């Protein structure tokens, strides 16, 4: 073999002088979450200008609480969407979880915590079932989880009536372990003038953990890959099935968290609740920059999407605008926020 004098491994290509280096600002702005953050700031400033109660720092707690109940679910739903799938059952699954915990504990007269733990098992199992059915039937996840969505709605109502004779679970606030569980899932604390509900903490922690998983772990790499091109991912050895089923189980876990808050905040759970919420989680994720087709998006963006949605809902109330037009204002604000998001990204990419 001829051995030339040049050392192997040397960067042999000519430097490509065509590529202007991008400023740090441009790089930052083209991150998926930054656009939505700017969208959120625009909405925030808008309400600051028109709604007096919005300026009161004590009310931040209300806004954050509204956002957190959406955000806790928007985070795993965004992960799932990045992984290329939908979960339409996410909203009712939370109700199912709350009902399970309550009905199990109340019906068998057990400690509330037993119900809580079994509800976790139920919720994660529902997620795993969704994933299993997806691969078993080969149907799109939209249809599979639509099926689960309907099935769970019926089960929520049917089982509750079967066990309690009513359409809501019985009040369990006098049962063993309730006080402790309420501390964990339904408490609040004061942070200066702001009353912070515990869901806000869960929301923030979930966002950070999920963002870390997505960007800094192998699983996160796989999530992007299975959503972007499942065939390519499989071809290079990514366990597509396990990744997707894992994502459905993560949604199940967060549905449980959500369901426990529902239960311990309000002591009972209405069996008809949760319908329509799955849609709001998806909206938050999309506002935050997730692609419906998968493979692209950001968890932090989805959380900001939840914040935008929560902020807009309450902001319109704070502003005291004509409630007949509530939805119109909501629609205009959401489009505005996302247009800002897209505009920022486009400008950044151009630089």
């Amino acid at each position: 073999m001829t051995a030339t004098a040049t050392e192997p491994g040397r960067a042999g290509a000519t430097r490509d002088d065509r590529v202007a280096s991008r400023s740090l600002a441009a790089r930052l702005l083209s991150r998926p979450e930054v656009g939505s953050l700017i969208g959120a700031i625009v909405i925030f400033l808008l309400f600051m200008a028109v709604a007096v109660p919005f300026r009161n720092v004590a009310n931040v707690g209300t806004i954050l609480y509204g956002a957190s109940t959406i955000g806790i679910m928007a985070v795993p739903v965004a992960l799932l969407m990045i992984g290329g799938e939908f979960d339409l059952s996410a909203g009712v699954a939370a109700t199912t979880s709350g009902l399970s915990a309550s009905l199990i504990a109340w019906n068998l007269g057990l400690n509330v915590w037993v119900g809580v733990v079994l509800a976790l098992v139920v919720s994660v199992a529902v997620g795993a079932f969704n994933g299993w059915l997806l691969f078993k039937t080969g149907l799109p996840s939209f249809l599979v989880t639509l099926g689960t969505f309907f099935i769970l709605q019926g089960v929520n109502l049917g089982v509750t009536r079967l066990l309690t004779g009513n359409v809501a679970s019985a009040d369990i606030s006098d049962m063993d372990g309730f006080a402790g569980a309420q501390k964990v899932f339904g408490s609040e604390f004061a942070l200066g003038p702001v009353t912070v509900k515990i869901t806000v903490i869960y929301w923030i922690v979930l966002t950070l953990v999920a963002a870390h998983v997505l960007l800094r772990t192998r699983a996160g790499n796989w999530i992007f890959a299975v959503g972007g091109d499942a065939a390519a991912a499989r071809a290079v050895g990514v366990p597509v099935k396990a990744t997707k089923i894992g994502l459905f189980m993560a949604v199940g876990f967060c549905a449980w968290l959500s369901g426990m808050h529902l239960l311990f905040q309000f002591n009972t759970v209405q069996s008809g609740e949760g319908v329509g919420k799955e849609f709001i989680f998806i909206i938050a994720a999309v506002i935050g920059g997730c692609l419906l087709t998968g493979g692209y998006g950001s968890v932090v963006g989805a959380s900001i999407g939840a914040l935008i949605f929560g902020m807009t809902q309450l902001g319109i109330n704070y502003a005291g605008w004509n409630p007949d037009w509530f939805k119109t204002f909501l629609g205009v604000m959401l489009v505005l926020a996302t247009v800002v998001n897209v505009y920022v990204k486009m400008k950044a990419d151009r630089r």
Partner: protein
Amino acid sequence: MSSATAERPGAASSDTPILALDGVGKSYGNVHALRGVSLKVRQGEVTCVLGDNGAGKSTLIKIISGLHEHSDGTMTLDGVECSFPSPRAAQASGIATVYQDLALAPLMSVWRNFFLGNELRRGPFRTLDIAGMKQICHDELAKMGIVIPDLDRPVGGLSGGQRQCIAIARAIYFGARVIILDEPTAALGVKQSGVVLRYIVKARDAGLGVIFITHNPHHAHLVGNHFVILKLGRVVLDAHRDELTLEQLTTEMAGGEELAELSHELRGADPGKVVAPAEVEHGQVEAPARPDEEEPSA
């Protein structure tokens, strides 16, 4: 020429092939893409798989790399019969592949694509070693003569050749025993093609088995030890390098058609000539005349 394999008695060190296919077949619905294909991959050798478009080459390597399961026949790895249920299993056996469609996730960044499925991790929490991966990715691409200034750019925005290079660099980096390359030089420039050919030789010299699919007889003849030609899903030629000259190989690849004739014909067409401008109707460009088709005289 029959499909009798030309075993060289001298090459004793690699008598048992690392990977052997025997009578393998594969159908896609009503299309029987492969029928009764036998093939041996030996370590330290470059096996070229050649053939017309749609002959079944990609199907063959998809079976070897675990993407499809074969319908008939057997596959043996180190003499043990096996069948890879998933590409992950094939990779675990040290088989790395460059697919014809590259298998890159277009929205993911260059370095994430490079390490997809084989991420480097470090620290107590097993987090991704991003700096390390970027460095390796940059180095490996640089060795191929490709500099992508921003490894965080999504692969979808790169040129066809740049994408091809990423897929090749990845397979070469991760190939432990067998490297499969499906038309790796198709989208590459002259220079990059040269680098890839050199890599193939290097991999062989390192003792790996290489399967190289190409439509370029020059490339095949430069690096191949063994040539297998597929036609309509069957093996029609399986010969050692010593048995074939470049001209014979080219003729075989073209299915018996004399390429010299093409060259002559085209040169006869006087490339220097300039024709009066015209505007033609749909389908008015006459089909070129082609010599009658013949089965390769085997």
